[in-house]
């Protein structure tokens, strides 16, 4: 698109050259590449809104960024009776005809043909097309103001303008129409309030000299026409530029265009609402001017208008020359290629590969939720050394690492860790399900994971579960989400990664989802019937039963999210739902799962939060997300295969220590992001490091915290520990219910809890066992470091540890305890790095 524009501009002559300015510093470059380009290449100004924003771009600089000149150039309309232009490049038609816009930049000028048509003297503004955008842009219908359910000060608008008819009524008819004064528009309450002429809790929204004021006032004077019948529906929104490489500190004008079903377009740059997904990189003002901040990275700039969304990607690279792909390490698989490409755009280099011990600890905790034992660590480190000594060049021992990954994926602890994760999301909860139900549900989850049942089959079994909750553990899910609405919103969030619950009561404020979408999903569950039986429930689909739309009171047909209803009625509507969900073409399921798995291993989802996919929250690396989800589909939803691919990638195996180029990068995976261990894994890690297994009352001997299948299982000490470290209560389908945030109570507990001290000094624990076996000081220190960190101590660490053990009067066992205590209270222990 940009190339086409460039050529279009080249055709415009003659070219005027000026003194080179700072915006285009390449002295001696060919004149043809020094001209700015103007978007759009032609200005067709058409009534009813004969206005267009232009955007002017300088050619790429030596550093590969394209500066925006929109506010830096001078504009002139050659025939000022046909059109006028502001200093910011907003062109407005004044009478039907043709002229030329001259854009005078520091390095040259370009001319853009302008045509004005369709202007009629009798044309009046209309409600939906002209007035609603003003209400939206001025924030009148936003959530904290008149858009909230009960309105504000008696004036109630639909949140973000999803219901134009009701809003028209509210503005013109409610309160006997005193909000608009047809005789004296200037005395209309809506204008007096919005301009602050009379007190307005929401403050001044626009001035009397503004375009908003003029349009509203003209519309009221014209008798508040609602809408003419022939208005073509809005089909889509586009934003220019679709992507842009920009320098930090720069400003860039975007241009937003609405495309209608009749082929007409309208410039809605002034009327769109804007936002970015990464405020550290970019912010955007109400006129569509993007300000690039200090931080290096990528940000999506979103524009919303009349329920449609368009996004533009802004990349702010480091201000150094571009980096060649040859500077990047050899990719292990497609993941590395996608990550490196993104990093190359930003001129960030990945950190070095993580040291062997650090990798081992990371991959153990992430994949199976346990720390390696000291003996495992010794063996792994030795095998890595052996492989390294065989290699030249890049000597990272990938083969040894991959071999150990395969071993991990076969261990039973794998199922424990992932059953815990899915039990959180699916809410295995004894309080709701009773002990029998919760255990049956958990067992079904764990057995499915242990057998590596393909995820699509797991989903099909879950959403179509029928029969007795004791016999079929999956049935319990419908006892957790026991109403059709709850089932729909949880299913959407958990399996589609779409938070649709907003749309239960109102149109989703940031998205296209409407109440029709919500109730269309709900209808799949409308016929479920539960009968209480001893110890649970019996679930079956009834032959009839409908979901009724709360506004229209009409039955709603089942409808896949974002698609048309499927003809024909299945015996159990959920079968049709499962067919849609598990189809290889389903646009949600594989992306949702790929993103959750990626987030688990990398510390951050490509879409974040992981269950909040929407056009206004685009993935940080769309190519990578596509690659991962396609891999899942190609591998028939084999979860272990995707995990293996992720953890054997070089991206996963990067060190967490930043280099000179990636210190501020927190979303492009140029290094490993440290993550605090989850509550259960941390508790098990303390048991593992101290060699003192947990004693969990009421659970079989040797049970680890990760295996506690019910989040409400009451344990005198462990419940405090797990709650303090953020174990979720499983009352929400959101992964965010599990807290990773540090608190002072956590720190105090790790430091001082008598229970942890008891593990440290356990008679059968690691330290006393080593002492009894006659371990030397050196051996003891190594053992402790391997148990806690999965690596040997550095020279400084070893010296400090030895000093502690050799201090006058130091007790061998006590001082060893002190060393392990100190290690368990460091970031390196509590976090996976």
């Amino acid at each position, binding site marked *: 698109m940009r190339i086409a524009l460039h050529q279009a501009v080249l055709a415009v002559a003659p070219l005027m050259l000026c003194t080179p300015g700072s915006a285009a510093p390449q002295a001696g470059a060919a004149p043809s590449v020094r001209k700015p380009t103007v978007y759009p290449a032609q200005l067709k100004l058409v009534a009813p809104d004969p206005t267009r924003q232009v955007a002017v771009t300088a050619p790429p600089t030596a550093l590969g960024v394209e500066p925006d000149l929109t506010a830096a150039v001078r504009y002139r309309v050659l025939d000022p009776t046909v059109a006028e232009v502001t200093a910011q490049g907003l062109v407005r038609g004044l009478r039907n005809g043709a002229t030329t816009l001259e854009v005078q930049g520091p390095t040259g000028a370009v001319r853009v043909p302008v045509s004005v048509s369709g202007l009629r003297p009798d044309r009046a503004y209309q409600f939906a097309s002209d007035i609603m955008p003003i209400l939206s842009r001025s924030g009148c219908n936003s959530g904290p103001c008149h858009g909230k359910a009960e309105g504000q000060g008696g004036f109630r608008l639909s949140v973000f303008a999803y219901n134009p008819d009701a809003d028209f009524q509210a503005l013109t008819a409610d309160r006997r129409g005193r909000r608009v004064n047809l005789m004296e528009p200037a005395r209309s309450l809506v204008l007096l309030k919005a301009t602050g002429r009379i007190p307005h809790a929401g403050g001044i929204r626009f001035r009397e000299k503004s375009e908003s004021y003029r349009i509203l006032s003209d519309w009221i004077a014209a008798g508040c026409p609602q809408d003419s019948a022939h208005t073509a529906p809005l089909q889509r929104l586009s934003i220019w530029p679709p992507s842009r490489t920009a320098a930090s500190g720069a400003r860039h004008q975007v241009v937003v265009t609405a495309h209608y079903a009749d082929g007409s377009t309208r410039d809605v740059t002034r009327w769109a609402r804007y936002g970015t997904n990464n405020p550290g990189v970019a912010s955007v003002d109400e006129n569509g001017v993007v300000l690039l901040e200090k931080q290096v990275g990528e940000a999506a700039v979103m524009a919303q208008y009349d329920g449609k969304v368009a996004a533009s990607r802004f990349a702010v690279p480091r201000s150094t020359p571009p980096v060649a792909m040859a500077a990047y390490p050899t990719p292990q698989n497609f993941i590395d290629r996608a990550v490196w490409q993104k990093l190359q755009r930003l001129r960030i280099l990945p950190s070095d590969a993580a040291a062997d011990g650090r990798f081992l600890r990371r991959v153990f905790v992430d994949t199976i939720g346990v720390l390696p034992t000291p003996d495992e660590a010794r063996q792994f480190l030795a095998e890595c050394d052996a492989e390294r000594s065989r290699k030249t060049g890049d000597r990272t021992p990938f083969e040894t690492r991959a071999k150990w990954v395969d071993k991990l994926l076969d261990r039973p602890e794998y199922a424990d860790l992932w059953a815990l994760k899915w039990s959180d999301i699916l809410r295995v909860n004894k309080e709701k399900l009773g002990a029998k139900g919760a255990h049956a549900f958990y067992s079904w989850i764990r057995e499915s994971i242990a057998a590596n049942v393909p995820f699509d089959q797991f989903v099909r079994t879950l959403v179509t579960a029928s029969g007795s909750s004791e016999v079929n553990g999956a049935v319990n899910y419908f006892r957790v989400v026991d109403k059709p609405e709850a089932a729909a919103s949880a299913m959407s969030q958990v399996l589609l990664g779409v938070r649709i619950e907003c749309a239960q009561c109102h149109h989703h404020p940031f998205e296209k989802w409407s109440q029709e979408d919500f109730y269309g999903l709900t209808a799949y569950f409308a016929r479920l019937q539960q009968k209480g039986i001893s110890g649970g429930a019996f679930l079956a689909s009834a032959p009839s039963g409908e979901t009724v739309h709360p506004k229209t009171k009409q039955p709603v047909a089942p409808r896949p999210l974002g698609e048309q209803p499927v003809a024909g009625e299945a015996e159990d509507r959920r079968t049709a739902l499962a067919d849609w969900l598990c189809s290889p073409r389903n646009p949600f399921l594989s992306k949702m799962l790929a993103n959750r798995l990626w987030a688990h291993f990398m510390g951050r989802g490509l879409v974040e939060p992981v269950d909040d996919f929407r056009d206004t929250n685009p993935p940080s690396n769309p190519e990578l997300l596509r690659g991962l989800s396609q891999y899942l589909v190609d591998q028939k939803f084999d979860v272990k295969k995707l995990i293996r691919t992720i953890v054997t990638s070089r991206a996963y195996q990067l060190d967490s220590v930043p280099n000179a180029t990636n210190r501020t990068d927190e979303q492009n995976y140029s290094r490993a992001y440290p993550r605090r261990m989850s509550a259960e894994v941390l508790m098990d890690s303390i048991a593992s490091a101290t060699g003192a297994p947990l004693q969990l009352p009421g659970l079989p001997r040797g049970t680890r915290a990760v295996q506690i299948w019910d989040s409400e299982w009451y344990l005198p000490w462990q419940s*405090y520990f797990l709650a303090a470290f953020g174990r979720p209560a499983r*009352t929400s389908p959101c992964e965010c219910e599990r807290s990773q945030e540090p608190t*002072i109570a956590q720190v*105090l507990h790790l430091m*001082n809890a008598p229970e942890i001290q008891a593990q440290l000094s356990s008679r059968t624990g690691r330290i006393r066992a080593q002492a009894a076996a006659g371990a030397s000081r050196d051996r003891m220190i190594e053992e402790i470091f391997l148990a806690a960190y999965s690596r040997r101590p550095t020279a400084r660490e070893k010296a*400090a540890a030895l000093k502690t053990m050799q201090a006058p009067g130091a007790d061998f066992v006590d001082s060893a305890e002190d060393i392990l205590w100190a290690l368990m209270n460091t970031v390196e222990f509590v976090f996976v790095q």
Partner: protein
Amino acid sequence: MFRTCDGVNRRDVVRAGVLGPMGLGLAELFAARDASAKSPGGTVPPAERNCIFIFLAGGPSQYETFDLKPNAAAEIRGEFKPIPSSISGLDVAEHLPKLAKSAHRMSIIRSLTHTNAGHGGGAHYMCTGKHPTPLFKETTTRPNNEHPFPGAVVTRERGARKGIPPFVSLPMLLTYGGPAFLGPEYMPFVIESDPASPGFSVRDLAAAPGVGESRAAARRTLRGVFEEENKAALKKASSRVEALNTFYQKAFDLVTSPAARSAFDIHRESTAVRDSYGRHTFGQSLLMGRRLIEAGCRFVSIDHGGWDNHTTIFQTLKDDLLPQVDSGLTSLLKDLDERGMLDSTMVVVMGEFGRTSRVNKDAGRDHWPQSQSVVITGGGIKRGQVIGSTDASGEYPVERPVSPEELMATIYTALGVDYQQIVYTPLGRPVPIVADASPVQELL
């Protein structure tokens, strides 16, 4: 264990203590009689004011505390007689004799009113000033609020004074006393231990038994060496790493800070003072609250259960609950006043709702959210005021009805917090801290 009638089993870790000896100081006997209502100290800037938030879980009866109806029919007025208090025109229940003499140190809202008669919903509404959404579910989880409790908001606004946590819950977390979506960094420091028990100490504040002070210090030094080795590499690697290190520093401050250690050491109080508050969990929690505020804490929440009196209400209140309130609250107000702390320390006492006018067949009263009496004083709140009134049967406000939103707006205003500011829920929904309410100006 207290169990409210909704069947929610509250995981209380402490039990209300039995009543201790009721010391009645001379000063107390004479102080109150003709003291006039004192105006609040306008000299303490709102941002420096603190709060002790007392929640009487279960729903205390207005008929047996601050809104007696002696002229109503017998099945309404109940068994208790009114006695005059040091606020002219305010009679209180006969089983609050000490508080009656100290009433000039507080104000009463008799017309607090809402419509949620569920324990969870009502408590959520009262503790946060926001009615729960339709998605709200009552669970055993603590905290369980959808909307932030004021202690968390104040913590976010002001942070900690040195060496002492800004927000402490005694003896346990209030069910609706958490930060909700503001995030766990605004969680209170929870004592979870009974300050009335002889061996009371705060969880995890001192080194584990068997680890002496010098060994604990040596451990911390060694940890510092190990952390240093990693820190250079990890500097700025993650904001959470930074946060954890900050929390370690704060925790070290706390365990080594004389202010905190002494504040939590309730055994330093004289026997007479401890006796005056009452040797029960409630009284000693209030005393601990005063100690914490004195040491620099900004917000203390105190949970006191047992007020869901569907049966034998008169006996329970007379023998157990009212004497605890009488000794505890009276001593707290007097103590704060005499130490010059009442001007800077708000005290507010409420439950989730009031109780029904008619005594039921089990000699109890049931839930009634339409009227409730609330005590509020100190920290910029006028004293000696009686706000609002209820009808002859005590069922509905007739003058100056006060909503939970208005009460919360009053609390925030006195504490200098902009309660109209917008905060964002995890779904991105913008909500004000308190919606659509003005403070009760008569109290400010």
